[in-house]
């Protein structure tokens, strides 16, 4: 793996007595697309602002490329930010916006002109040099904001929910654009979002945060398939999270039915959270199911049908391409490797998981 570029060590930050981050430890590798994912108020934006230099941590150190930059002002740091609301300079043309950072660095006019052309080409807005900011759509403005940041050749690009204000289609297009940009530029992206789909699509590494604590760090596949706790499972996609009892290694009891699974090492008769993704629930004929239930709702979602099946007192969320009408009696089956067993949090405060990633 490539080297660690940014190292956040024991970062603590509070605002007006509210602790936003509590002893956060995280490192970011060179050329990584790292996403900070979590609900609003989880501390992801504060983390990004600490990296960008807009906030100073109460405690802890920010190390960038081997140097302590904790108290360095934003204009002294080798990174650039793309803001949620674009933050373009409204009194400047597009070319002037893009040239802003370069002029401060006293680059030659020829160099600046070249860079503007290059950056506009990179974000597919060639020939927009002299347009005014007002004449652009939201998606175009965001692309200019990205162009303005990348012409400075930062080592790291910080993106604070940059697609949050765009509509769905544009958001999806921009996700691909960002992946392309990251690959072409070969720089590190740190991306903040509350949208799990964005995180899964673009990231090399996802950091799931909640209430100032890191819940899980991993690849999108890890996070989706092997969530470490009920919060992560619930936040990353929809899931059935059911109380279970781990009877023994590879055997869990859910809703009074014994399910074979693949997890070991939880001990005997341990209460656990069981996560089953809706697409992993198979609907079969009643006699072939591990338990039986009735379809109580049915929604067409395009690619699949989404159903709720009431079985043994629990409403199972099911996504499948086969339609069963409301009222149909069906059997439920789950493959052992699709059952994810997780320890129950011992208390609400201790939801955070210590990670030595």
């Amino acid at each position, binding site marked *: 793996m490539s080297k660690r570029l940014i190292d956040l060590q024991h970062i603590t930050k509070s605002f007006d007595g509210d602790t936003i981050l509590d002893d956060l430890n995280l490192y970011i590798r060179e050329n990584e697309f790292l996403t900070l994912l979590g609900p609003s108020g989880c501390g992801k934006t504060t983390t990004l602002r600490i990296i960008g230099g807009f906030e100073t941590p109460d405690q802890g150190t920010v190390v960038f490329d081997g140097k302590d930059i904790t108290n360095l002002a934003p204009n002294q740091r080798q990174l*650039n930010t793309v803001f949620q609301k674009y933050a373009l300079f409204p009194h400047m043309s597009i070319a002037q916006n893009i040239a802003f950072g370069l002029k401060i660095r006293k680059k030659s006019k020829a160099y600046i002109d070249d860079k503007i052309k290059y950056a506009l080409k990179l974000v597919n807005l060639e020939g927009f040099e002299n347009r005014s900011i007002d004449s652009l759509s939201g998606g175009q403005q965001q692309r200019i904001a990205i162009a303005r940041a990348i012409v400075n050749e930062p080592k790291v690009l910080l993106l604070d929910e940059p697609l949050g204000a765009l509509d769905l289609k544009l958001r999806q297009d921009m996700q691909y654009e960002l992946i392309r940009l990251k690959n072409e530029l070969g720089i590190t992206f740190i991306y903040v979002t509350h949208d799990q789909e964005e995180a899964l699509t673009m990231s090399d590494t996802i950091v799931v945060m909640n209430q100032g604590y890191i819940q899980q760090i991993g690849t999108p596949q890890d996070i989706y398939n092997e969530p470490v706790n009920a919060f992560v499972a619930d936040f990353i996609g929809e899931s059935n999270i059911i109380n279970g009892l781990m009877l023994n290694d590879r055997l869990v009891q859910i809703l009074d039915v014994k399910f074979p699974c693949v997890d070991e090492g939880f001990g005997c008769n341990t209460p656990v959270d069981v996560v089953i993704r809706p697409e992993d629930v198979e609907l079969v004929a009643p006699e072939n199911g591990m338990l039986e239930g009735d379809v109580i709702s049915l929604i067409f979602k395009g690619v699949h049908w989404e159903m709720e099946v009431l079985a043994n007192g629990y409403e199972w969320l099911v996504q499948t391409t086969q339609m069963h009408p409301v009222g149909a009696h069906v059997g439920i089956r789950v493959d052992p490797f699709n059952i994810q067993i997780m320890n129950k949090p011992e208390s609400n405060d201790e939801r955070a998981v210590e990670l030595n990633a």
Partner: protein
Amino acid sequence: MRKLKRQLLAGPYILWMTGFILLPIAMVLYYAFTTTGGSFTLLNVSSIAFSVHFKALILSLKLALICTVICLILSYPLAMILNRMKTKSQGFIVFIFILPMWMNFMLRILAWRMLLSNNGIINSLLETLGLPMIDILNTPTAVVFCMVYDFLPFMILPIYNAMARIQPDIIEAAKDLGAGNATIFFKIIVPLTMSGVISGIIMVFVPALTSFAVSDLLGGGKVLLIGNVIEQAFMQEYNWNLGSGLSFVLMIFVIASMALMNSRGDETGAGVW
């Protein structure tokens, strides 16, 4: 029918505008270009070239300019300081600054006359402290002083509004791109508050230029502004033609100054009229 109804709604305003704006302007124009007998003349307007009138006009322009510059110098830093304060205290400080506007204009001027007079509060205070007394009453200094006091809120408010409209993340973006404080000030804050500055300049310069009450009460008849000359023409000499002629000249200066400021303002999208 609906269209007619909607047009009727504009009726009161049209009446108001005709009766109190258009008609008086038309009358000023009529008197300005006629003699007492009613025949056409340019004498009323060209009498601005008379030494007394011309001096008054120049003094008016000078004092208005000084007053505007002082207001600008006081207001801009204040607006910046205000903008950095917590929202709650911002409102309070703005309130303090516009509080004098709750008092009658004439009362405020008279109050300054009391404060500045030879045995007024300020001089009594200076005397007890053993400091030299100031004798600025009945001088242009006193007039400028009071005009600044009176017109300062009109400069502060538009600049403060423009400054408050600048999104914090625009400043952060500039910092992020490597800008130091000086660059942020000159490249971001100044251009983005230019519309407020221009509004402020117009709102201070125009009333300062046309004012006559301040110089009347604090100038003690020694500071003759063009406003005083016009007032005298109307009220003492009953020479409406001369008064109108000079008013017309003053109006041209007002319109010219506004047009000048506005042509500057167009770049930043500022328009106050």
